[in-house]
């Protein structure tokens, strides 16, 4: 699946978008898997309460299942307007 990062999450992880091969069942599982992989992920995901997640461009939450999802995005709370 495609995983996207925005704002300071993108800066910490160092890429805006990457393709990730994973069997993670939920968003939280994906976060744990990435955090175990490299320190830059562990840092970015250290406090998930400071993060938001979108699945296929709809706001979702960290308990949500990933089955059938093609695009996951992680970002801080939005500051539009």
């Amino acid at each position: 699946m495609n995983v996207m990062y925005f704002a300071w999450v993108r800066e910490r992880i160092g890429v805006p978008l990457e393709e990730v091969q994973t069997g993670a069942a939920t968003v939280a599982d994906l976060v744990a898997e990435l955090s175990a992989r490299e320190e830059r992920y562990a840092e970015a995901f250290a406090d998930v309460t400071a993060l938001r997640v979108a699945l296929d461009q709809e706001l979702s939450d960290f308990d949500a299942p990933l089955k059938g999802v093609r695009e996951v995005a992680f970002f801080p709370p939005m500051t539009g307007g």
Partner: protein
Amino acid sequence: MPVRVQEDAFDAGAELNAFSGGDGVGAVVSFTGVVRDTDGTLAAMEIEHYPGMTERAIAAIVDDAMARWNLADVLVIHRYGSLPAGAPIMMVATKSAHRADAFAAADFVMDYLKSRAPFWKKETTADGSAWVAAKDADEDALKRW
């Protein structure tokens, strides 16, 4: 329900005039958000967004407003990229037969754009750059609706 997400500047007055007509319209409300330079130190503001999700999120907010109030139309323009202090960032306009609907809907759309449309602001000053933190008050504002 025109929605535009663009890098280019826009002319808020010209947009207001182009939006304002229509049979049965008695009230037009506009909101323009401007890059604010509180203490004269802001060099630039950078706005990042999530192409695709941005348009979907704004369309959902506008649809919600059209369902809640009696509106003739809603306009949303939001810029991304690098903006100087004083530049218009975005505007929302609503039009209706009645002023209460136009006011409430513009206020509602602004509250939701702040916290539910995927934009992130980064401010650059002489001291460096920093991402603008979301305010609890902006999240709390959604509970009004």
